[in-house]
């Protein structure tokens, strides 16, 4: 441990010294820190990609292999053999997209109403809404499942889409955004022009909310794309499996083909990462635009 600690301390000292000596030194130190953190953030992804090109016994060898291997094709064959990746991808898309669309619709309506309208009970209702965010869903897991089976929603995507599609967090987020960005004058003007409240919301307000839609959409997309616990008890047929269930199904007591499993993880995450990287500016603007202000 000693050598390692000394090394780290030495690096830190050098960085402090050069940043005091010269402004350029300060810049270099900042970059070193940012890049070091970025590398740590990227390491697990890199390892995932590397492992998807290795045989299982290469993954567990010493010293560890940290460069790309040659087993990608074999792993791909094994993956195709084990699971139906396109199907799971489609399932995940169906669940996630329909969920996100509903979330955006209901939450923007709710958040907007809490933000711009004055109505009796508003504060109490909003307090209740905030309170619900603090309750872990696990409390009602069994009764929830009983309900789902009474509705006939076991093995049905509806059970994953409907119950959470108007969620407290989304309404809270949208309200914050509306609070700061909805110009009341514009609404008044529209009212005078004889627009109904519906028209005002859909024609005038919705376009203004675009950045908030983007941020809330991303957050819910990511959550739903990775949702596991509920999916596990609801979707029991292989042809209905979403990606996290598919990944889980590749881990077996009998022995897991980790190369293939990592390839499947890569396949599950890569499209998301690519979209994310390509549109990173848009995403980041969207995320940071949904400013949370009291």
């Amino acid at each position, binding site marked *: 441990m000693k050598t*390692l600690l000394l090394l780290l301390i030495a690096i830190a000292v050098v960085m402090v010294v050069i940043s005091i000596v010269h402004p350029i030194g300060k810049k270099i130190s900042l970059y070193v820190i*940012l890049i070091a953190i970025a590398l*740590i953030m990227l390491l697990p992804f890199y390892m995932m990609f590397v492992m998807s090109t290795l045989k299982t016994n290469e993954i567990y060898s010493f010293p560890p292999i940290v460069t790309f291997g040659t087993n990608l094709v074999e792993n791909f064959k094994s993956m195709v053999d084990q699971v139906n990746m396109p199907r799971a991808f489609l399932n995940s898309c169906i669940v996630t997209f329909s969920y996100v669309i509903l979330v955006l619709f*209901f939450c923007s309506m709710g958040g907007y109403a809490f933000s711009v309208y004055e109505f009796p009970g508003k504060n109490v209702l909003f307090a209740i809404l905030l309170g619900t965010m603090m309750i872990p869903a696990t*409390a009602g897991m069994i*009764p929830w499942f009983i309900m789902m089976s009474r509705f006939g929603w076991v093995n049905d995507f509806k059970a994953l889409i409907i119950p959470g599609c108007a969620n407290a967090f989304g309404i809270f987020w949208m309200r914050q955004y509306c609070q700061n960005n909805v110009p009341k004058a514009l609404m008044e003007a529209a009212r005078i022009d004889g627009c109904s409240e519906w028209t005002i919301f859909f024609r005038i307000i919705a376009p203004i909310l675009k950045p908030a839609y983007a941020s809330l959409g991303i957050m819910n997309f990511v959550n739903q794309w990775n949702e596991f616990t509920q999916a596990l008890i609801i979707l029991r047929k292989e042809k209905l499996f979403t990606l996290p269930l598919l990944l889980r199904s590749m881990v077996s007591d009998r022995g897991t083909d980790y190369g293939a499993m990592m390839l499947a993880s890569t396949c599950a995450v890569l499209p998301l990462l690519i979209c994310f990287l390509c549109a990173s500016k848009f995403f980041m603007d969207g995320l940071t635009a949904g400013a949370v202000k009291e």
Partner: protein
Amino acid sequence: MSVKKKKGLLGTLYANRVAYVYIAPFFILFAVFNLFPMIAGFALSFFRWDGLGPMHFIQFDNYVNLFQDVLFWKALKNTLFIGIIAHIPILLGGLVLAYILNSKLVKGQNIFKTIYFMPMVTSSVAISIIFMNLFGNNYGLINWFLSLFGEKPINWLGGDGSLIKVAVIVMFAWKWIGWNMVIYLAGMQGISNDIYEAAEIDGANHVQIVFRILIPLLKPIILFTLIQSTIGMFNLFTEPFILTNSSWGGGTNNGGLTLMIYLLSKAPQGGNAYGYASAVAYIITMMIVVISIVLNKVTADKDEPKKRKGRR
């Protein structure tokens, strides 16, 4: 904006129908899909039920037994320890990163932001397996790295169990630091650049700016992330569970046992003590609510009370 004609309850409802219709979906869905199961769960916490046979009403036994269980206290201690330690890098790191990336000190902010946020996009099943590899005893990347410096391998996930927490903290911080950074960035965009410039002209250094200006201004946002982190901390499950090779006891000496593992080990995943598990769930809920209220109070007290009403 709505014209108030007192016409009784129905009249009021009708007059504000648009608002009520807009917020109705949440309350309806919540009542049906959350409230009902939660009430049922609360009732369940007074019963002993294995989900297979008859239910037995046992009053407060579940709660009494719960408070007498050493494992519950261990789990609570672990959860608080992991949560508090992990939040130092998550909150502070998130804040510092947001500050650096918000200032004009470096180029390529968007690339860094994207990279830091990437961990949020991954499924925890896959990523836990990778972290398990990194922390592996005989073949792990970290132990290999240590061996380059002549160190003996460290049994992170075994040993006497205390190092499991380190692995969990690293993984937890890895995942959430970018999220907090984004939230703080969002908050900082609302603070005009003039404030920084004025401070710099006054000769304030960056540390002073962060602590004297930024943190007070971001207080509501920090409070928001704190509450969110508290909820996240109490929900900590997948990471320690997979890192301890799916052990319902949380590994050696219960080192990785969190409250959520404890809850799920009773039901529905690790066991079938549904009544008991419901009691645990309610205790966790109570703790989250209490902590949220305390956090709210602590931050509110330092504000001048009269200012609060006037805020936009």
